[in-house]
């Protein structure tokens, strides 16, 4: 299982990887925040503070991507990670795949 970083430019590749990971963490945080907001366990002031922090993080990530020209490599990296996750899920759900794994 390999992830193709941009070999011609390792710095961009590494930065892209970091940004992709931060984006994933941010999405997890957002999901958690939304769940708490919808369940009513956050006050208006807390929602506002959380929203502002997440929005600023989002803006910073967009700026880093734009400044370094790594939008495409982050998107591709995230697609690759999605695909890996998807393949794993498919493998878990498909008994034929277990048989193949066992036979190999």
């Amino acid at each position, binding site marked *: 299982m390999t992830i193709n970083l941009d070999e011609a430019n390792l710095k961009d590749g590494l930065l892209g990887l970091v940004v992709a990971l931060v984006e994933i963490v941010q999405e997890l945080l*957002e*999901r958690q*925040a*939304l769940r708490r*907001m*919808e369940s009513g366990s956050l006050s*208006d002031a807390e*929602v*506002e*503070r*959380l*929203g*502002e*922090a*997440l*929005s600023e993080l*989002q803006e910073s990530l967009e700026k880093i991507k734009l400044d370094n020209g790594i939008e495409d490599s982050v998107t591709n990296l995230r*697609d690759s990670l999605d*695909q890996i996750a998807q393949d794993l899920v498919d493998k878990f759900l498909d008994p034929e795949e277990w048989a193949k794994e066992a036979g190999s």
Partner: protein
Amino acid sequence: MTEGSGDVEARYLYAIATAGEKQNLGNIGVEENAVYTIPFKKIAAVVHSCEPRPYETRDRALAEGWILEHSYVIDQATKLFGTVIPFSFDVIVQGGDSAIKGWLCRNYDHLAGELRRVEGRAEYSVEIYYDYDQLAEGAMRGNQELRELASRIEQEPKGKAYMLKRNLDQKLKGLVASEARKKADEALSEIRSLADEMKVEAKRSQPPEKYREKRLLGSYSCLVRNERANRLGEVLEEINALTGFAVRFTGPWAPFSFVKLGDAA
């Protein structure tokens, strides 16, 4: 599959066809080689005579030319003999016509069986795409709660507006995904009812230019009887005409995804 080592001759294999007599197809092969059939009982290998080494080049245009020539021979063989068992590019067997005949003889039952299985059928490729923005627009129009959420975003301060926007995006994403999945399931059951066999293909990350802005919902290879191909085309055209969906339907191809060479390979 190598035969008669020490032999300097070899045969380039295009396909196995239902054909009982030797026939020349003309100089239509890779690099204009003369293509002919080597029959055994009721089946025949479609070949050209070559040296026992693979076609290799670093010249992309040349390689593409070879692959087009290879496909052309398979098309012509299909026109002449009906559905064939196609080989992929660059399958070369060491030995002369007798070596091929021996191979056909040893695998006759299997190959003849496979030819009967694909007879009167062809392979088609179906890719279903959807346009996220168009489906999201449709979902917004049909959902009062989402429209209210959207209008609230404009009235709230920055932080809360951001959270509401994310909430809206997430809800839309869920609605679009379930709409797309519903449509894919409908399409799949229609395709299944028309195809003799169907395979779900791995999703390709690079769709053709026309579909670049869209997302791939599913990619399928289907083995379809010739008389049902038009109906399949009509069904897919109905999906293609739906707002937010697009279908790429290509074929007929030789049944590359469906023939099983098994031990014969």
